[in-house]
């Protein structure tokens, strides 16, 4: 199945199983991801302890794990002579119900072997005691977001290599974290000379703006050029009495709120209040509310 065609027309393809055709397994299918606040704490933690951060993606992560379900399929023509025979699925294919949990358990066993321990407060933050060459005692942190791995340590390369030995890390993905979950990550120097990391939603907002502009353009409108504040001057969303939006527009409104909320999570702190105010009308927005959202996007476009 082709599911993405990249800019240079190379095709990204992946075998995906139809998980919906299997019965819900009795064992657990739960697989959690790291909390955003843990990520923020990890980036914060690196600065005062003078640690380095390294990120990597595990390529085709799920396929490393064994399938937990008993499923078989009929081989297609791509296997040549044996086409038509029944095959038992061994790897945790993308799309199966238990694959997420299977991969997580596999990675967990490797991390335990490496001496890492999952923390009680966030099971996807792993830590292990470590000592710097200058005898400074600290804990290394390792954060897991499905197949994205983030290591905070004095020498994070050691851990990364250990993981890289077992699983193929995506080429070019190993490096100082620049993007994580859609956020931009930058290294900055504080006034007192310490190196720190900053997190922001610039690129995420840029991408969102493109979509918003395209939608507006298809309706012959465009974003306002001037928006000094996120909401129009004196605008009180709760006093808006314009007609209610229809189902299609409501959907769009909810989509925009979803985008804005994610931008907030990534660090767009300047519109926290405004998004909170506008979220109140998520269930039944009025046309004026949508206008106000466009105003907010215009503000974000300018603020960039």
């Amino acid at each position, binding site marked *: 199945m082709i599911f993405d065609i990249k800019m240079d027309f190379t095709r990204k393809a992946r075998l995906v199983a139809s998980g919906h055709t299997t019965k819900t397994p009795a064992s657990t299918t739960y697989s959690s991801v790291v909390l955003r*606040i*843990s990520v*923020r*704490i990890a*980036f*914060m*933690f690196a*600065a*005062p*302890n003078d640690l380095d951060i390294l990120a990597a993606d595990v390529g085709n992560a799920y396929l490393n794990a064994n399938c937990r379900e008993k499923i078989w399929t009929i081989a297609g023509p791509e296997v040549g002579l044996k086409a038509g025979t029944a095959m038992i699925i061994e790897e945790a294919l993308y799309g199966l119900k238990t694959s997420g949990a299977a991969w997580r358990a596999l990675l967990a066993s490797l991390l335990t072997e490496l001496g890492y321990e999952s*923390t*009680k*407060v*966030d099971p996807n*933050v792993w*830590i292990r*005691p470590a000592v710097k060459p200058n005898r*400074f*005692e*600290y*804990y290394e*942190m390792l954060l897991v977001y499905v197949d994205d791995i983030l290591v905070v340590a004095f020498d994070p390369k050691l851990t990364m290599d250990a993981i890289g030995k077992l699983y193929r890390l995506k080429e070019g993905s190993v490096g100082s974290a620049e993007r994580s979950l859609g956020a931009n990550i*930058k290294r*900055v*120097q*504080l*006034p007192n000379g310490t190196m*720190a990391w*900053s997190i*922001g939603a610039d690129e995420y907002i840029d991408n969102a703006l493109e979509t918003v502009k395209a939608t507006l353009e298809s309706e012959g409108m465009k974003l306002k050029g001037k928006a*000094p*504040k*996120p*909401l129009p001057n004196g*605008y*009180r969303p*709760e*006093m808006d009495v314009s007609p209610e939006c229809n189902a299609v527009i409501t959907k769009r409104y909810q989509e925009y709120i979803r985008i804005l909320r994610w931008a*907030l999570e990534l*660090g767009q*702190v*300047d519109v*926290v*209040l*405004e*998004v*909170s*105010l506008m979220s*109140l009308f998520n269930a039944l927005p009025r046309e004026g509310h949508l206008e106000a959202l466009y105003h907010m996007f215009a503000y974000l476009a300018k603020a960039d």
Partner: protein
Amino acid sequence: MVRTDWTDFYGDLLEEIPPKMPKPRGNPVNTTCFVDANHASNLVTCRSQTGILIFVMKSSIIWHSKRQNTVETSTFGSEFVAMRQATELIEALRYKLRMLRIPIDGPTRVYGDNGAVVSNSLVPTSTLTKKHNAICYHRVRETVAAGTTAIGKVNTDYNLADNFTKQLSPERRDHLLQCITYQTKQ
């Protein structure tokens, strides 16, 4: 900040340390919190808006802006509700930091701009009658007594959470944002 004696009111209260807390390592971090509330900002329901901004060292970790669940008749009430929400967020954050084995340096410094709320949480002998306000009141004072938080007053001009509760003028917004990003990005 002066440490007041609370033993007559809350006994030998100490901050609850998670059981089996692992031994922290590394350099300790300090935490700072700014709280604000906008009384009856919603013109339809007359509910207030809470704004909270929590820093660990110089980086903002939690930013929070939400409409309050109760209708408050006074600014004091809404500010105290906000203070309680901040207290709960702080406790959660401190627990989290502890479980991640990051050492915490002293109580969280909490800054609010409402004088009455601040003095009420700092002066042991002050009292209160309204029930849900009284709950917020005790909740906040308990954490102060336990040494989890240390509350202080800032002038509204310096309250970094101001922007999370009311729509401000572009100049004031920019000023506050600069303060926040100075702490985070520089």
